[in-house]
């Protein structure tokens, strides 16, 4: 059995990559990920690897076989709650970060309670109405938080069409803004991961105090 690296070893390895000052900022931040599907699970893996200190994972759903083509779950995890499965996977990737899970559906009544400790919030739902609901709620009631939402990543159009747009001071939108899963054009792991990477990258840029998209 392999012995996992110590916390010091992992921290030092990250510091050597990006510098201690930046890693300190990552390690002391809290990011909430709303929805743990194709976007959320990929955002979580990216941020965990980057050394973000605290992740709040929120999803009510269970892993299904149809998720495996783009979501960061293992085949052996079908039937498990996404919160628990992802937390377990992250524990093996980045054993020393803090992962808080809420196996709940976010709505207009509970979003404040679930998200109030986050510095940055990632909207990673798959339904257009849920996206609009969360974005409206957070922008109205928690305008001081950074919010990175997503829209449009379906199909196999060029990867170059996925982009990050800064809408307001604290609100960013990632995706191509048009490719809708309801048009039956499918969802490809690479394109979804691309959008998730845009979101994760914007999180890290904000933590590095680079606020432009």
């Amino acid at each position: 059995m392999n012995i996992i690296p110590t916390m010091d070893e992992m921290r030092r390895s990250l510091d050597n990559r990006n510098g201690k000052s930046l890693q300190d900022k990552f390690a002391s931040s809290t990011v909430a990920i709303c929805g743990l599907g194709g976007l959320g699970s990929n955002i979580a893996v990216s941020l965990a690897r980057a050394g973000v200190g605290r992740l709040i994972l929120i999803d009510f759903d269970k892993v299904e076989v149809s998720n495996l083509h783009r979501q960061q779950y293992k085949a052996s995890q079908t039937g498990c709650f996404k919160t628990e499965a992802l937390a377990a996977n992250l524990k093996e990737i980045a054993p020393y970060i803090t992962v808080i899970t809420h196996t709940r559906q976010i709505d207009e009544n509970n979003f404040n309670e679930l998200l109030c400790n986050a510095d940055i919030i990632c909207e990673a739902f798959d339904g257009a109405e849920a996206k609009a609901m969360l974005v409206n709620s957070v922008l109205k009631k928690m305008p001081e938080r950074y919010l990175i939402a997503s829209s449009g990543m379906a199909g196999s159009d060029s990867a170059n069409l996925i982009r990050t747009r800064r809408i307001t001071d604290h609100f960013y939108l990632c995706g191509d803004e048009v490719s809708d899963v309801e048009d039956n054009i499918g969802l490809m792991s690479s394109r979804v991961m691309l959008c998730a990477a845009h979101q994760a990258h914007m999180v890290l840029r904000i933590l590095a105090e680079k606020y432009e998209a």
Partner: protein
Amino acid sequence: MIKINGIFHEAAGKTLAEYLAGTSYNPKRIVVEWNGVIVTKEQYEKTVLQNGDVVEVVSFVGGG
């Protein structure tokens, strides 16, 4: 003239609700920012557009 998503429109005097009704936006899938302020759905009928206003409508599509 009112700037909506970067394009100028003649819409002075219309409420946000009236303007949106003339578009193909689905009110349940949008976020509207009017002069830097987020306008909730309940406020669309009460927000009257005036010349010089700047509006941003973000429309969400599904997938994730």
